[in-house]
């Protein structure tokens, strides 16, 4: 069977795009062939910096012929029907159709269509130009004397030539000479840019690979990686060092060379005073070289491995020297940064520590975290508050958590992190240690970014845990509020990773923590810190001016209701914080200022008029004062206004986000808004938790059964899922589930048949209608288990609850055997359904067994 060889030869393809490009090429060509009925035995794609190559073996030489019979209308049918048939069958005259007899219809026209299969090479000529033109490069370009997009050919870098041959092993293959963008495919390729640039005539994959190898091109990226890795290890070993392996770098370097030649360079050992991670980052990021370590000390060695693309005539001496010189210059820069970071900033308070100064600088420069979420300084303020709060939940020292939070983003201002963002956190820890912070505070500064993914380690230090949770929750809540949630494959702010981080921090540290309170707390902090934003952007867009009044009252409300921080804002503080905004509102909405003051008072439950007095004082310049009488007189009217406006608007918006049952009826609009956001976010956590636990081997249906909207305690969910999964494997579990399914099926059938009656199933059964011994037994057992189950659930002993429920299996089974549920006596029947309904309800109180499969 014939094989296809396709090579697209271009200028240097960015290393990071190579692997995907090879996959895409293979997928696009093979799919297009299969779509045209051309299946193949095997396919493989390869890539180097200058070529994308596809080898498909075992293709048919041509498509098989297609036969089709198209049945037409009866002989003598109207003209229209005949015309339609001719068109469908592609015939020009009815004489071309055969007449056959069809049992029922009599004589009908029939067209025997025969389509000859095309030569595969012709199919390739058809499909390949389109694949090249529409190749999914992340970013592509035009070159030369081109016309503007979209007509012209685009490629990742200028495309120079194409090899395309097709044919069986035994014959000279055919050149599939398709043309695209002025390039005609041939059988000519080229070797290594410097060592063997001459043209090479190729036939098929076998001789192609061999010819390239001779022309100093290793086609297979996996082999290049292997060569680099092995040679690097050997070379390091020969010098008494050990290679610090780095898979990402290895992939990149293999994408920068066609002919890897591993060499060693060196630098002055004095540079090893710089933290090893910075040395590594410098050498890796700027020079794409590997660092080495001394196996005896486990510290970095003053040498590095580079990968050249040529076999130099001096065996690489000049190349190694040149690279060493560049590395030296880069390390000088790094050393300078590292030393500069250990000096005070000239224009900042000399009494503050180095990191505090950096944070002061961040605040002074108003460095933006996110356009809508404000500055890094504001974010740190929120994290400080949140970390302290969470510290109290996870048994960390709140003062230490506060200190770690104050400094956790300070290293972003340092020179080293400015140059090498990947050492953020780590440098913060180094500098914190240097300035004498407590070790666990310094550690928390590094670890608060952890875990970074499913395999990263999870901090154990309580301060780190508090700070890591605070950082992630603030991020999540923030992006939820501005509605930048992840969608599909898009997650630009790595929010899924942040949520997984929270989950792993909680579960892997066995933290008993109900996420809803820190989430609500984070939200409160965000809304308070960003009130100006909500006023300026969000509120104005969605809310008419009356709602501004609510905004003010809401923050008063939070102050009153916020359970964990009652004194978060004392009145003076509150006024100081919100005065400018308040004044702005007054200014812009002169006509509502009076009521806004009043509603503010109402919203705050401020029956203490002295406070309102204070508020009046602040807005005196903007309007006349109201006297107490007036306020008292208008109180009912204002109350109504508050209630009405809050209610209507709240319903509109919150319906979009949350089940209304979750919101206390008396909540304000903003309370509902907060509720909606946190509920949505908690649902997201539950989704991520499902993914996480599924990967840990938990059953899909078991997770669905224990995860509900109300379940916000991750550890409890995990424990329940584990207990339930184990329980369902036991005999009593299986029996209970069988009984449950039976009860549920009966109930479902009856509920469907008698929907009006169904509502009353939930009522308790009555003892007087319990006739048969087995229904008496079930009734009694339901009574006992109800007590035992709820007692166990209250103690969060889920296994005990399941075991209590398990006692129902046997009586339920006996009930099904002995008792006819659909008794003729209506009262008996209803009572039996209520018994089953009670059984089902008890099960559901533990977990949603309807989700369990089987």
């Amino acid at each position, binding site marked *: 069977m014939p094989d296809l060889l396709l090579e697209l030869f271009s*200028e240097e393809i960015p290393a990071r795009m190579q692997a995907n490009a090879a996959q895409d090429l293979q997928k696009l060509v093979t799919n297009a062939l299969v779509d045209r009925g051309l299946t193949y035995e095997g396919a493989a794609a390869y890539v180097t910096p200058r070529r994308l190559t596809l080898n498909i073996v075992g293709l048919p030489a041509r498509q098989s012929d297609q036969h089709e019979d198209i049945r037409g209308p009866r002989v003598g049918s109207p003209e229209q029907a005949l015309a339609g048939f001719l068109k469908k069958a592609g015939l020009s005259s009815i004489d071309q159709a055969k007449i056959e007899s069809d049992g029922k219809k009599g004589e009908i026209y029939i067209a025997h269509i025969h389509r000859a299969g095309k030569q595969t090479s012709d199919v390739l000529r058809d499909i390949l130009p389109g694949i090249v033109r529409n190749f999914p490069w992340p970013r592509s370009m035009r070159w030369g004397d*081109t016309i503007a997009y979209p007509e012209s050919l685009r490629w990742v870098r200028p495309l120079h030539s194409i090899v395309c041959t097709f044919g069986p092993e035994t014959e000279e293959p055919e050149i599939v000479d398709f043309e695209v963008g002025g390039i005609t495919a041939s059988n000519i390729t080229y070797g290594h840019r410097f060592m063997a640039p001459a043209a090479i005539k190729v036939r098929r994959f076998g001789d192609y690979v061999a010819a390239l190898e001779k022309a100093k091109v290793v086609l297979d990226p996996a082999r290049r990686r292997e060569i680099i890795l092995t040679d690097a290890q050997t070379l390091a070993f020969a010098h008494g060092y050990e290679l610090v392996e780095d898979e990402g770098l290895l992939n990149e370097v293999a994408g920068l060379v066609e002919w890897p030649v591993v060499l060693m360079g060196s630098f002055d050992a004095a540079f090893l005073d710089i933290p090893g991670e910075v040395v590594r980052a410098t050498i890796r990021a700027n020079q794409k070289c590997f660092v080495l370590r001394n196996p005896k000390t486990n510290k970095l060695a003053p040498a590095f491995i*580079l990968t050249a693309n040529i076999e130099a*005539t001096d065996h690489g001496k000049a190349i190694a020297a040149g*690279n060493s010189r*560049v590395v030296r*210059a880069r390390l000088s820069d790094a050393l300078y940064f590292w030393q500069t970071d250990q000096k005070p900033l000239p224009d900042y308070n000399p009494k503050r520590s180095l990191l505090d100064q950096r944070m002061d600088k961040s605040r002074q420069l108003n460095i933006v975290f996110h356009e809508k979420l404000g500055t890094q300084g504001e974010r740190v303020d929120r994290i400080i508050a949140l970390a302290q709060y969470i510290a109290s939940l996870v048994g960390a020292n709140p003062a230490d958590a506060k200190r770690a939070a104050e400094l956790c983003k300070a290293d972003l201002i340092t020179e080293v992190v400015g140059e090498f963002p990947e050492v953020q956190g780590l440098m913060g820890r180094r500098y914190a240690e240097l300035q004498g912070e407590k070790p666990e505070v310094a550690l928390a500064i590094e670890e608060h970014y952890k875990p970074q993914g499913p395999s990263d380690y999870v901090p154990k230090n309580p301060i780190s845990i508090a700070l890591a949770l605070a950082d992630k929750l603030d991020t999540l809540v923030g992006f939820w509020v501005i509605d930048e949630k992840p969608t599909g494959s898009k997650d630009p702010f790595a929010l899924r990773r942040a949520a997984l981080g929270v989950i792993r921090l909680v579960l892997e540290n066995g933290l008993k923590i109900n996420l809803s309170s820190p989430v609500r707390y984070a939200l409160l902090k965000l809304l308070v810190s960003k009130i100006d934003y909500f006023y300026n952007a969000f509120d104005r867009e969605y809310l008419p001016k009356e709602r501004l009044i609510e905004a003010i009252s809401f923050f008063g409300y939070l102050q009153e209701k916020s359970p964990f921080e009652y004194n978060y804002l004392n009145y003076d503080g509150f006024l100081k914080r919100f005065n400018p905004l308040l004044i702005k509102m007054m200014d812009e909405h002169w006509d509502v200022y009076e009521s806004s003051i009043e509603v503010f008072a109402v919203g705050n439950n401020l029956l203490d008029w002295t406070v309102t007095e204070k508020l009046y004082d602040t807005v005196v310049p903007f309007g006349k004062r109201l006297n107490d009488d007036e306020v008292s007189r208008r109180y009912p009217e204002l109350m109504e206004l508050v209630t009405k406006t809050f209610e209507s608007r709240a319903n509109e918006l919150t319906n979009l986000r949350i089940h209304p049952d979750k919101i206390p009826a008396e909540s304000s609009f903003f309370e509902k808004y907060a509720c909606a956001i946190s509920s949505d976010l908690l649902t997201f956590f539950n989704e991520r938790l499902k993914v996480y636990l599924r990967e840990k081997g938990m059953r899909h249906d078991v997770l669905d059964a224990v995860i509900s909207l109300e379940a916000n305690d991750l550890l409890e969910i995990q424990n329940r899922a584990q207990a339930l999964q184990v329980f369902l494997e036991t005999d009593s579990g299986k029996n209970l589930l069988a009984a449950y399914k039976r009860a549920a099926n009966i109930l479902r059938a009856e509920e469907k048949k008698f929907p009006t009656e169904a509502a009353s199933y939930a009522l308790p059964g009555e003892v007087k209608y319990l006739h048969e011994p087995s229904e008496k037994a079930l009734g009694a057992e339901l009574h006992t288990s109800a007590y035992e189950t709820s007692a166990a659930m209250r103690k969060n002993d889920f296994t005990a609850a399941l075991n209590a429920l398990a006692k129902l299996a046997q009586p339920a089974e006996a009930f099904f055997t002995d008792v006819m549920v659909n008794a003729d006596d209506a009262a008996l029947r209803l009572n039996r359904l209520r018994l089953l309904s009670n059984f089902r309800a008890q099960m559901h109180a533990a977990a949603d067994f309807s989700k369990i499969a089987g």
Partner: protein
Amino acid sequence: MTSKTSALDPARSFQGLLLTLQQFWAAQGCVILQPYDMEVGAGTFHPATTLRSLGPKHWNAAYVQPSRRPKDGRYGENPNRLQHYYQFQVILKPSPSNLQQLYLDSLAAIGVDMALHDIRFVEDDWESPTLGAWGLGWECWCDGMEVSQFTYFQQVAGVECAPISGELTYGLERLAMYVQGVENVYDLNFNGLEGAAKVTYGDVFKQAEQEYSRHNFEHADTAMLVQHFKDAEAECKALLAAGDQHERHTMALPAYDQCIKASHRFNLLDARGVISVTERQSYILRVRELAKACGQAWLKTAGGGAA
């Protein structure tokens, strides 16, 4: 005594390097221009690149462009960083299909032996927010050191390029340090002579680096610079309006000069550290608006290919 020819050996003298590149590209049919007589941050700002890369007309040019980056000043104390340095700029429109080879030939011309040195094309997507321009290409590495940038312009002044220009930018000091084998830019031999007749890069530029660093970081009058920025912006817009004759434009070049001026004032303000993050964006945006308008105006001139 060094003979005159060897004094101009690119491996011996900075000026020799520069002359060799000029010779090389002249032989390829490039117009050899002299530097643009204004303060610019990079050779790309020269109208011979920015404006000539727009429109259908073919254009091949090469020139040295002194470039000023006020923020990169180090008071003459850093061996690699300068607030004033030379770029050698080549623009070929349309980009010839052998542009990479021509570039490699030019390196060979200045004495880089491809059998000894490792030349690499490493991905580098170029973007100039102030010019509303972007392109794809590479950093060119020689033994791990970036010595040039190689870009296929895709868009300039917000306009899609057609044909596409290939742009080569050589960092002359770096290349010279490499071919002369010196570690400190101020030690570069400028004129290729030895002994008393030798002139180093430091002799020529060290004092300037010290003085301009003081100016850029400490003494530049920021209020005045802000005013100059506004003036240049206003003048640019005024010239664009005055020269606009519907199908034609009669003052694209003078207007573009004002855009260059505004851009450099912004760089100076930035170096003085008086521009906040948000302001920074808005300054960049304002310069870009000017650049875009100048590009549009250029397309309505003879040089821009207007009939």
